[in-house]
């Protein structure tokens, strides 16, 4: 719960002494860190509001220019020349579909497999658990060739399914749910059985509501994981209108500096980081609760 702590309780004490100068030093260090992290992003934003000519003629001004509306509408609706006229709107849509598909798919698959492993007794249960566990050691890169072959055979190149499905299986999320489910007291399961709840009822009425903070935290992590995917979308998409914003960003940059529409690259870069930031900001409360709090 987000109740304010009583003053002077353990965590609220400043780590550096209580003196005023200590507080100033602490703040100075924190602000410096913030500037170092935030400045490149700010500079990208500044660049995204300048004309191409201004960007190509250093030094770049430190304040936003006047081209905000022109640049952003051109990127979103006009389409970038090097991408065959595909606008950033399409790219954002593609990436959103992929990131949501991966996040939701991973959560659904892993919560169901963890449910099976923790609450049911079936032959080779432990063998299956270890099989899932072992896949942790096989990152996408290792199995990328066979996966690509399968996608080609299934005709899933340049489709959303091709972008999403190979990334859905998740040992990490399965383990996370497994660990959480194991903390659910056996008595609760038995109480539900006595109360007449079958396996589905128990899952939907009891397990799912109890897991919701975990699901939220996992969703944030997985959405960003999906959003920032690079290698797999690069391989599985050829058409410019099916590619993701991260890949598009790469494609927009030419070897020849003058050939690159840097103002649009900057706009696309800013657009690419907005949705993950939104997800984190909007779900922050749930995210933190999911990591620190179990509702028991």
């Amino acid at each position, binding site marked *: 719960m987000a109740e304010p702590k009583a003053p002077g309780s353990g965590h609220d004490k400043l780590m550096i002494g209580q003196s005023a100068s200590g507080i100033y030093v602490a703040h100075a260090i924190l602000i410096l860190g913030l500037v170092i992290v935030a400045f490149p992003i700010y500079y990208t934003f500044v660049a995204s509001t300048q004309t191409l000519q201004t960007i190509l003629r250093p030094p770049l001004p430190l304040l936003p220019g006047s081209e905000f509306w022109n640049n952003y509408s051109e990127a979103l609706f006009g389409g970038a020349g090097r991408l065959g006229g595909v606008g950033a709107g399409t790219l954002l849509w593609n990436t959103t579909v992929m990131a949501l598909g991966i996040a939701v798919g991973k959560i659904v698959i892993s919560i169901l497999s963890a449910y099976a492993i923790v609450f049911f007794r079936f032959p080779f249960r432990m063998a299956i658990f270890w099989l899932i566990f072992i896949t942790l050691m096989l990152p996408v890169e290792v199995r990328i060739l066979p996966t690509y072959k399968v996608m080609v055979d299934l005709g899933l190149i340049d489709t959303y399914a091709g972008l999403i499905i190979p990334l859905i299986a998740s040992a990490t999320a399965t383990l996370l749910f497994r660990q959480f489910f194991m903390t659910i007291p056996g008595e609760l399961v038995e*109480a539900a059985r006595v109360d*007449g709840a079958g396996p589905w009822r128990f899952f939907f009425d009891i397990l799912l509501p109890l897991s919701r903070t975990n699901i939220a935290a996992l969703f944030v992590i997985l959405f960003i994981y999906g959003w920032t995917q690079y290698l797999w979308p690069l391989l599985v998409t050829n058409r410019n209108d099916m590619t993701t914003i991260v890949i598009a960003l790469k494609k927009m940059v030419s070897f020849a500096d003058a050939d690159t529409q840097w103002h649009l690259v900057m706009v696309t870069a800013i657009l690419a980081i907005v949705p993950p930031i939104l997800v984190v900001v909007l779900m922050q409360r749930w995210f933190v609760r999911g990591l620190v709090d179990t509702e028991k």
Partner: protein
Amino acid sequence: MATVDLKDVRKVYPGGVEAVKGVSIAIPDKELCVLVGPSGCGKSTLLRMIAGLETISSGTCAIDGKVVNAVGPTERDIAMVFQNYALYPHMKVYDNMAYGLRNRGTPKDEIDSRVRSTAKVLELSHLLDRRPRELSGGQRQRVAMGRAIVRNPKVFLFDEPLSNLDAKLRGQMRVEIKNLQRSLGVTSVYVTHDQLEAMTLADILVVMNAGLVEQMGAPLDIYEKPASTFVASFIGAPPMNLLAIAAKPNSPVDTAEKVLANGEGLEISAPAHAATLGFRPEDADVISEGTTGSLKLSATVEAVEPVGAESFLYCAAAGGRIVVRVSGRAAAKPGDQLKVMVPAGKLHWFDSTGKRV
């Protein structure tokens, strides 16, 4: 309502451990049967088999005359109160109580009226909108009871329901459970390791040890005539005093003349095969002058435990340790020498296997 009949029920776990080794209990309609015993004696396993949460390895369990071995917990029409209450943490009290009814397809308005009337009986009406974590231990206990009662089942099963409460609350809830059970008239099985709970709640008391029933009957009958040294030492607080006795030297084993462990002779005759004699702390008196026909022991006080209305003297006597109850304040201090007398009629005799003689 319902009877519960267990016939030679056994539980063997896959590893080969036999937790329950053939138990037969018949619980008449509307009676409360308490299963009591030390941890690991199989009492909880037995309860869980009645609930249908554990399979029965052999033997039969019948509820209301119908064998339910192959019937799941939902269809047995039982309700269970768990040790840690097992309330659904994300549901309000109302929904906790209504959940079982909803799963059975009870109409909405009937659920509402039943939950509200049950809440009234248990004084939970003002808590219906709270979640379990906002309740105190005693209130959670009540909700767990409410969840069982609202279903109006054939049988109530209680699995050490009071063990998480403080002593005062435990006493209150004990009385309340007894009253509720009696007014609702629902056949109940209650598992506890607390002999006081067992004595006060039970219509039928079943003392279990190592997977077997040691003794079964009315609580006071068991108290007055324990069938074995195990029951004698388990029921009653402080437990019955047990002293080893042996045949007088150079006498046949089955002589009536026995000596205590310190060689002192008994002035009264003992049953032929008795190997242990026992007496309750309250049956012993501290005396100055002995009367005939009673057991006399010289004892050294080791500790005095004043409880208020009575005091317990922990003494060394006859090569063992005994507890003597005296009413009010005890005059004795540690180190005092006492004479303790027990009337012959109050003595219990057990043979070398621990069985009552």
